[in-house]
């Protein structure tokens, strides 16, 4: 049991725990916090995978900005306990079992997938070589320049949309 494995299992368990909490929690804000928990643990996993920059971005943007927005909205709308209405039939009889099935299935699939095979014969194990942020940015700003610009436009539009909606709210 090496240090990375310990860290992995610690974070993995935390993440799953957080996800489950997200489901069972009745207060939206609890769900939000559990989601943050998931994100942070994922960030740690990213570190373990040597993706430092992504880890940082994960926390800064996801946990630090997006989730803050969520919390903010929850506080603003003072969203209390969600009332328990019965699931729609579809959801109850089809959705839930299927969801679990999907979960298991994907797990199984990944486990047996090509990658899994590579694991089996020892290769493909994670060598903790940290990806330098420089290379990443090179990739981002040279090969993926156009998508990058596209996303920036997307963000701009999102801002406009949000502003418009807010204005109409008044």
């Amino acid at each position, binding site marked *: 049991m090496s240090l990375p494995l310990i860290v992995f299992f610690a974070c993995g368990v935390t993440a799953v725990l957080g996800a489950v909490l997200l489901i069972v929690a009745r207060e939206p804000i609890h769900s939000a916090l559990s989601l943050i928990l998931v994100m942070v643990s994922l960030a740690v996993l990213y570190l373990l995978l040597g993706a430092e920059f992504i880890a940082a971005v994960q926390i*800064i943007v996801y946990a630090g*900005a997006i989730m803050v927005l969520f*919390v903010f909205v929850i506080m603003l709308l003072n969203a209390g306990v969600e009332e328990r209405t019965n699931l729609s039939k579809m959801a109850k009889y089809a959705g839930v079992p299927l969801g679990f099935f999907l979960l298991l299935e994907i797990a199984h699939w990944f486990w047996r997938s090509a990658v899994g095979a590579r694991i089996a014969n020892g290769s493909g194990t994670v060598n903790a070589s940290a990806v330098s942020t420089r290379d990443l940015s090179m990739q981002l700003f040279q090969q993926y320049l156009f998508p990058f610009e596209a996303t920036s436009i997307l963000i701009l539009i999102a801002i406009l949309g949000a502003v418009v909606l807010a204005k109409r709210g008044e």
Partner: protein
Amino acid sequence: MDFIAQHAVLVVSLVKIVILLLVVMTALAYLTWFERKVVAHIQSRWGPYYVGAHGLLQPLADGMKFLFKEDVTPPASDRLLYVLAPFLAFSLALTTLALIPFGPPTIQILGQPVFVIANSNIGLLFLFAITSIGVYGVALAGWSSNSKYPLLGGLRSSAQMVSYEVSLTLSVVGVLLLANSFSFNGIIESQSPNIGHWHVWKQIVGFLCYITAAIAETNRVPFDLPEAETELVAGFHTEYSSFKFAMFFMAEYANMITVSCLATILFFGGWLSPFPESWTWQLYLPGVGLLLIALYCAYDTIAHMRGIARIQLAVVALLALIAGASCLIPAVMPVIQGPFWFITKVGLFLFLYVWIRGTLPRFRYDQLMSFGWKLLLPVSLVNLLVTALLIVVVKR
């Protein structure tokens, strides 16, 4: 034993953490004293005076008081979060300090640098990450105590922090472009050898943006809307009492320290001395400074102090004397340089904080927001743009 040999990182880090915590705690405690004193003098008062000489024991007394106060928890509150919030705020605030290098990495024990706990090569990003999480302490506090003033305070703080975090980050990017590195050591090294190369000169605009955003980020005057006494009784920590309140309090000061450290590192050359290497006399500065303090304390003891205070101040003078003397030992002298300069600069920034608090009035909330979005953000953006352009041009 071999465990230690294998995981020297863990052992050394643990030791460093303990030491740092002790130092920082005391620093926090005395920072309150420092602030009260300075503000008092700005307002031409004496400030804390009676508990110990010059009120030097005041922090201790406050600590006691906090510990022995009754810990009230509002019945309607959300227990878990109510407890969680202050711990979150405080722990995160302290965590950030782990990334700060107080001295050059060349000074090592067991192959581990002494003056920094976590030496990451994207330290800056991590620092921002942690600070960005810091919001939740305040927000949750506001939410969980389930009454209207805290809620408003929480709302305000979350909105405000998110808004100013953007310009905070942007204002720093200019420096990153100049330093061409994310790691604090890299950034600091890029500012050697002397005061002429500090980033503050090239990045003056960025620095102003940074300092403004930083003050807002730490909820200090004039941006302390979340705890505006005159509007919301005490903002997000209205319902908090005793030690939980103390935690928020200390978290705020810790954040101040962090931000000051960051400013020092980014713009003022961190632990670098402002003078060129060749001036060897600067090695004596720490010791001499401490000795001067000791001298002043001694004079004060003899001149003004009466009764118990006299003894206390004498002790202080003695301590300062010992410290100064030890700083003059040739072996210690080079080691102490880095921290000396670093702490001095940080101290100046803290003084600036207090000074501003003593001087400026508080913003109105809408002013705050429009200032953040309509002035600060564009300016820092333009700054970033211009910097990038200039760098490209110069590179050509």
